[in-house]
Each structure stands twice: as C-alpha cells, then as structure tokens.
C-alpha cells in the first residue's frame, strides 16, 4: 500500500474542510464570533453564505470560479455558524447533506490512498482489496458499513447483497465514497447540534434571516405540515389495513403488529381512548395494561417519547409487511404511505 505518499495537503483540507486536522491550516484559528463583523473577512462571510444558500437552492455546494484555499477552509466553520443561527432544523439538515454530497463528488475522483486517509479520519477500518478473486477495490469492517447504511434503503445496500468475508464488506470506489457521504453528513449534523447558542453579532443574524427567507420561498411550508384531523381509513397502507382488520375481528396480533398499529393510529391523530377501544375485541384484553401501553406509545406516559411506527424494512423482517402495492415502493414508513395517498387524492 502506498499510504506513505498520501499525506493530505492544504489543498485537500480546503476540499474537505470538515476533517479533524483542517483547523491546523486555518490562518486565524482563534477567530472569535464577534470578529465576524470585521470587513476584512467579508469574502469569507460571503462564501459561507453562498454555501448555505447553495444547499437550499441546489442541494449541493457549487464550486467558486476563484478557488481560494484559505477562503474555502475558513468559510466552512462560518457556514456552520450561519446554519446554526437560522435555528431551523430543516435548513441545517439540508446544509449538512449538501456539504456531504459535494465532498462525495470530489472523493469519487480521488486516488484510493486519499480515500483511505479520509476514512481514517472517521476511524473506519477500511483497506484496499488485494485479492483478484473478489470484485471491488475496498474492504470495510461490516460494523462501519452497518453504521452508515441506515438511510440507504434500496436493496443493493442490504448487507445480504454484498460480499461479506471474514468480517469485511467488499465495495467499489463509488460505493465507498457514497458511504463516506453518510458519515460526513452525520458528522456535520453533529457539529450543528449546539446546545447553548452564543450571542450572534448583527451581521450573522441579518445573514441568517436572509437564508431563512430564501428557504421559505424555495422549499415552502408543506414539508413541515402534519396530518389532517379527520382520519381516512381509505388511505391506510396494506399492512395497517391487515392489522386493522385482524384487530377488529379479535384475531391474534404479534407484539410487533400491535405496536405498529397502535403507533400508526396515534400518529395520524387517533385518540388513545379510541385505540384502546379496538383492543377490547381480544379475549386476553386487560384494560389497565392496554391503557398503559397505548398511552406509553402515544407519549403520554413514562419517557414521554412519541413513538413512530417501525420502518417498512423492519416490518418486512418481522413479517408484518403484507400485500404491498405500487405506492409502497415510494415510501419508507407506513405514515409516508398515508400522507402520500392523502395528498394525491
């Protein structure tokens, strides 16, 4: 392996400014938040603003015509501050994703050694494949793989459809870069989770407001909207319909089935009392126990967590998924089906 020759240079950190050691190359590492008012930093602030705006407008970060290593390096942490200052979770998520996507495009063009270096930054156990018998250029410890496919729902990412040998998954370069995108996105999302917000200087607040306005125009409010008050059974997905029918007839439901149905119904706005009513058809019905469990799922008891129904893939694992139709291919969760069907009807 040629890792010896592949030390990352300043140019690399400008391309991948989220890496741990990037701060070493920043000219003024001790910059304070109030310094951002300084006119000499205007170019950097402008680039930072562009980064977040690009995320909203194009879902990626476009390259600037005048690539300047220092500006790239410095504008990243400031873009983070801007995204935090919008106090809008949607903008923040979109920004993290755009940065990760942009990095992935670059990563795909990098030599193997550089990809190894960047993976090392995230403590991945990644290596190049030496055997000619096995397709793919990289091998990755399966646990690192599993931690990063949570949001990759298509069949080709399933562990079962990859070569897993002695604890390592065999991957092509593009697949490796795509997985790194997930890692980078999570890393940036974490950096955006600042619990105690500082006092932002006026210029930052002003810029953040501009970004929020842009987001409202571009994305609209639809994304954040919940469900209508009236429950329409005709929009239930097939799995829920099957469970609903079973419970109405007092037929036995598995634990996962009961949880799925209950969490689905309370999420679309059915009151816990009405849900409990359904369970009365069971021969082993116990009022106290059922009430406790339903109210727990609805987030009215115990940990106050508001539970969502399991994802479609989880329902497949536990045999709850049934009679899936065309619409099922478009969604990942029974709630998505309900929303989609309501919107299209």
């Amino acid at each position, binding site marked *: 392996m040629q890792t010896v020759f592949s030390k990352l240079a300043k140019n690399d950190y400008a391309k991948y400014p989220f890496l741990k050691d990037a701060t070493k190359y920043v000219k003024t590492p001790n910059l304070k938040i109030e310094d951002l008012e300084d006119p000499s930093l205007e170019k950097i602030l402008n680039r930072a603003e562009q980064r977040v705006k690009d995320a909203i407008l194009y879902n990626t970060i476009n390259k600037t015509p005048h690539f300047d290593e220092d500006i790239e390096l410095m504008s990243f942490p400031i873009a983070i501050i801007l995204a935090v200052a919008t106090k809008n979770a949607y903008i923040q998520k979109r920004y993290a994703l755009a940065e990760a996507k942009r990095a992935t495009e670059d990563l795909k063009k990098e030599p193997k050694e550089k990809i190894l270096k960047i993976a090392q930054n995230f403590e991945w156990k990644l290596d190049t494949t030496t055997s000619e*018998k*096995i397709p793919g250029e990289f091998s990755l*410890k*399966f*646990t690192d793989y*599993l*931690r990063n*496919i*949570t949001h990759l729902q*298509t*069949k*080709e990412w*399933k*562990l*079962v*459809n*990859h*070569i*897993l*040998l*002695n*604890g*390592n998954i*065999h991957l092509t370069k593009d697949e490796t870069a795509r997985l790194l995108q997930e890692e980078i996105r999570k890393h940036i999302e974490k950096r955006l989770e600042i619990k105690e917000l500082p006092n932002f200087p006026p210029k930052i607040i002003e810029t953040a407001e501009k970004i929020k306005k842009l987001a409202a125009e571009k994305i609209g409010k639809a994304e954040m909207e919940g469900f209508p008050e009236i429950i329409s059974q005709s929009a239930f997905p097939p799995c829920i319909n099957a469970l609903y029918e079973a419970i109405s007839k*007092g*037929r*036995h439901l598995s*634990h*996962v089935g009961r949880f799925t149905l209950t969490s689905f119904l309370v999420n679309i706005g059915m009151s816990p009392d009405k849900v409990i009513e359904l369970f009365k058809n069971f*021969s*082993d019905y116990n009022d106290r126990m059922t009430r406790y469990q339903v109210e727990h799922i609805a987030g009215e008891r*115990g*940990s106050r*967590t508001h539970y969502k129904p399991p*994802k479609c*893939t*989880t329902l*497949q*694992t*536990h*045999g709850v998924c049934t009679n899936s139709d065309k619409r099922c291919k478009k969604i990942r969760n029974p709630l998505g089906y309900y929303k989609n069907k309501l919107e299209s009807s």
Partner: protein
Amino acid sequence: MSKMPNLAEDFVKKMFLKYYSECFDQVCIPNLFKKREFGGLLSKERIMIRHRKIETAAELQEFLCSIIPSDVYFSSAYYEQPDAPEMNSKGWFGADLIFDVDADHLSTPCDKIHDDWICSKCGFAGKGISPEKCPVCNSEKFDVKTWPCELCVNAAKEEIIKLLEMLKSDFGFSDKEVHVFFSGHRGYHIHVEDDSIRTLDSVARKEIVDYVCGLGLTVAFGRSRYNDSDALNLLRTLRLSNYGWRGRIAQGVYNFISNAAREDYQNIGLKKNFVEAILANRNMILKNWREKGTLPLIKGVGVKNWSKIAEHCARVQSANVDTVVTTDIHRLIRLAGTLHGKTALKKMEFQPSEIEDFDPFKDAIAFKDGSTSVLVHSAPEFRLGDITFGPYKSEKVELPTAAALLLVCKNRAEVVSDGI
C-alpha cells in the same frame, strides 16, 4: 409452569433451591455483570422481578436462593444504572448480539405431534400444531402444552450450525467471541460478545438478521429491477468459488442438482419437462460446472426455472432465527447454568466445535441423583441420559429425579410422595 398443584410446586421449588445452594458454581457469571440488569420469574404468581443490579457472585446466589425463580434472566445490554426502573434512565451503552433459535418457530420432522392443545374457550383439544381456528367454536386462542422432543431440538441445532458457519466465515467472529448454549428447552442461543458490535443499534442488528435469514436477497445481487437477461447473466456467472451468499447459493444449487429426485424438483414448482431435461443432463451439468467454473445452462430450462432452484437453495441455506430477539437491544435472556422452569434442565454452554456431539438430553441434566414417585397423566416416550422412559398414560411410576422434574415442570405429572 402454569397452574401447578401445590405439592408439585413445592417439590420443584425445593429442588431448584437445592440446585442453587449446592451447585451455584455451575451458574455462569456473565462478563461485566455489574453493568447488567438481572431478573427472575416467580412461577406461582407469574410475576417478573426485574431491574436488579448484582454486585457480587454471593449477591447473585442470595437472589436465587431467596426468591427461587423458575427462570433467571440477565440483560444482553450494558447500563450505567442497571437498577433504574425506567428503561430511559438506565443509561444504555451497548449490548451483546443475541440469536435465538427455537423449535416453536420451525417446521420439524415430528410435526410436533407430541404437543397438546386445548381451546381456551370451549375446551376442545387435539394433538400437534394448534389449528388457526378451533373447529368447534372458531376461537383463535389455545393453551398449548409443548414437549421438547429430540427431533425438535435437532431441527434447532441444524439452524444453529448454519448460523455458526456464517458468524465465523462471513462475519469473521472467532470462537472466543461466539458463545453457544442449549436453552434448556427446545432451542439454542448464541451470544456474540465483542467490542465492535456492542454499540450497534437495532436497525443495524436488523440487517444482520436479514443477512442470516437471507431476507431481501436479490438473486440478481444488487439489481433492484432485474429482468430476465440480468438474471441470466447472474446465473451464467454463478461460480462454486464465489464468496458470501452468492457462493452459498452456488454450492446449494450444486448439491441440490447432485441429490434431488424428480419429486424434489416438483415440490419447488418445476414443470415435468424441465425436470426431465435437468435429470437427463445431471452429470454433464455438474461436471462442466466443476471444470469450466460457471453454471452451464442447458436448452429447455429457462431462467425462471433456474431462479426457482436458486431461491429454494437460498431458503435451505438461511438460518431461521427469532427476528425479534436479535433486534431488541434491551432483551432479557436466560442466564447460563440456571434451570429452565419448563424442564428443570440447565441452559448450558458448549464449545462451537462440539456442537455435533453435544447431547442436550444428557449434558444439560442438572439433577443426577435420587428418585421420585409421580403420577403421570400422559407423556410421550422420551430419553434422559442413556435411559428411555415412557410412554406413560395415567400411571404411577418411580423415576430418577431429573425425569420426574421434567414431567412435573411440563405439567404432565403430579408428585405422589417426595422421594428425597
């Protein structure tokens, strides 16, 4: 143990106490036990005592001897505060990877003919696997009296053997990290203890389950919308030397073609003329496959038929585990070396390499001395150690303690006079 007569209950409790007092050295103290939750089931009250924290071995023994649980559990999870009463305040920081294979979920060669079921509504009773609906009153709830027969337990063992192979060659775990146990009843457990898997969430564990069950396996490996020509390309490149599931399927198809008779093909849905075409060319197919490396497709057998064979072989090669157990990161599992309330046999660890020789009905016997007189209502023929007992029907017999306990725990017998 459900609704046991008092005399029987006392006998079981007395024997369990004797075991935990005299044979406590057989109870396995798990790694990092101070960070785990412990629990025990009180059979009579049907109450689960849980959220217990254990600091020393003596404390565990004290717990077992004072409460005398019918079943003893500990958490696969590690917690900052194992004794916190709410799951959210426990401070979860990891969990072992657990697999459970139980004959209850498997179709077995005995068809569970030894199990009794009785409709909880009208009392209609029968033998074998309970029907979906009671033939008399249409109710769907039954009380089932199961029986741990050797065929059932062996069916579970077959699944565990496949699972062990995958954990070793595919996931790369060594014998040091993989612990295999007989559950004490009708199944086997595997605990994987390793830093690398400890913090995996339930979504990641679901992927592991799907892998061992072969769920979501596209025979076209990666092509979500594969058409016949894709499938054809895949089949043409299916090599016996392939790795992972691809290799597993290749090997499976090879073995199937080597051994399958006419009806085996028909059972998986192949039409007669295709079957004849394959059978007529069997030796040629196998020879060419071995020598040329790739599966030689023959005229008259289309892609769809080959895919049927491949899918059947994938099913045969998958390990049928309880999906809920592995994905639950807060699971309570039976503590090794403790007694199973349904059998009075031990949950018992053995080396993965010894699985073929492990004899649950001998090696997991906890009580090796003494005898007891019992009145047996009904019991099929069964073996414990080297002795075969029964079948019994409404008769009084004097049995070795282990056999008497098994029947009493299974609600198949009553204690007549306390033999010890």
